[in-house]
């Protein structure tokens, strides 16, 4: 067969443009690899099926975390360890750093990347709820040009995204939050290390200038629906209200009612519904006690 003689190839270009050209030429026939911590698990016993690799490891501009005017741009090849230790992430997006620190193990965090976590699109991906809660947008590049999409538009199902074969996720764009922004991150799993989340919650609350009135809220969860989701009904209930007048139990109930978890090896639908409510209340309490400080505080 002619096909079998096609040589296997491995590309590790230094420029994004080169990578886009290779992607355009090979489309579905090439596998893009970032850290490989998800990919090599998925292909554990069938690595031979992949004949062509596009490794992004040499593209330096994909490894930067930088602030550009009012936004932060995180390169797709930034590792979980980089997110965990970055002072800028701690300052502006603390719960993203905390979520990164909760991923896998040192071995996984050193190699796994934010771009890989996003493109893999597991409903349980640890970074996805925090990214959504911070209003992340994703920059998708192809030789035809750039497209910027929200996290909500990007994820369409378990392990399904709108990313086309010739497109590359290059950057994650996060608007810098005001100083009156507070976050809480809660991950529930059967052990601390190397666990895929049973449920995750990322709650981000922005207060108005008076430090008492809720200006904006994003309540995002993972492992409770086909994609990471935002519970928008919480926003409707909270915005414009004084934080200490909120009914936390009622808000927890809204979260419980609006999620659509399934039974799986990590937990039942019933368990996830119960826990969702409880962790929502806990997250609200954490933010309530942090609000007094008036700076970027969490937990």
């Amino acid at each position, binding site marked *: 067969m002619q096909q079998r003689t096609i040589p296997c190839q491995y590309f590790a270009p230094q420029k994004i443009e080169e990578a886009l050209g290779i992607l355009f030429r090979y489309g579905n026939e090439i596998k893009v690899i970032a850290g490989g911590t998800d990919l090599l698990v998925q292909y554990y016993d069938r690595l031979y099926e992949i004949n*062509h690799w596009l490794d992004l490891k040499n593209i330096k501009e994909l490894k930067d975390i930088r602030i550009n005017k009012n936004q932060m741009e995180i390169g797709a090849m930034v590792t979980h360890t980089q997110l965990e230790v970055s002072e800028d992430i701690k300052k502006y997006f603390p719960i993203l750093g905390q979520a990164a620190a909760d991923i896998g193990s040192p071995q996984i965090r050193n190699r796994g990347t934010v771009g890989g976590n996003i493109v893999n699109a597991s409903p349980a991906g640890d970074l996805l709820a925090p990214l959504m809660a911070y209003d992340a947008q994703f920059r998708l590049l192809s030789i035809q040009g750039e497209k910027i999409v929200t996290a909500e538009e990007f994820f369409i199902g378990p392990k399904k995204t709108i990313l086309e074969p010739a497109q590359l996720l290059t950057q994650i764009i996060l608007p810098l939050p005001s100083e009156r922004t507070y976050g809480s991150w809660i991950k529930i799993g059967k052990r601390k290390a190397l666990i895929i989340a049973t449920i995750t919650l990322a709650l981000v609350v922005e207060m108005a200038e008076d430090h008492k009135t809720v200006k904006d809220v994003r309540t995002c969860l993972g492992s409770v629906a086909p994609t990471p989701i935002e519970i928008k009904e919480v926003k409707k209930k909270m915005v414009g209200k004084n934080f200490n007048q909120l009914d936390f139990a009622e808000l927890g109930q809204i979260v419980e009612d609006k999620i659509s978890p399934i039974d799986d090896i990590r937990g039942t639908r019933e368990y996830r519904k119960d826990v969702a409510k409880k962790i929502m209340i806990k997250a609200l309490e954490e933010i309530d006690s942090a609000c007094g400080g008036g700076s970027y505080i969490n937990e």
Partner: protein
Amino acid sequence: MNKLNIELTVNGKKRKVETTTSTRLLDLIRDDLHLTGTKEGCGKGECGACTVIMNSELAASCLVLALQADGADITTIEGIGNDKCLDPVQKAFIETGAVQCGFCTPGMILAAKKLLEENPHPDEEEIKRGISGNLCRCTGYQKIIDAIKLAANRLSSSDSGRGEKDA
């Protein structure tokens, strides 16, 4: 399947190796370089038996393509000590009885070594987090934790570092 050439540094030596697109770094280390101290446990990044130090960072070599390691600097358990001159972490593992079946030990020692490099005085929680990517089914971990504490004490009270005599 056609072969591709890569060059990497393993335990300080430059190595040129022929490999394939479906070879993992773990396979290259064990089967091509015959460095069998690095073990395969789960093959899925869960157990840490295949841990190596890659470009100064801990990595699960079962989750790295050999081709991804082109140009990389790799340290395996064979690179940190030998029968005549053990690393202080290895000595501490022996003395505290932190080795039983021994299968997790190479990965565990590399994780411990990396932890002490970054944090010479870890507390118990930091030690647990440092070895959280490495499973041991024999020891119950306590003796491993004791060994890391012992190694930390010796390293900080000795200027000579690697290969020093027992205190």
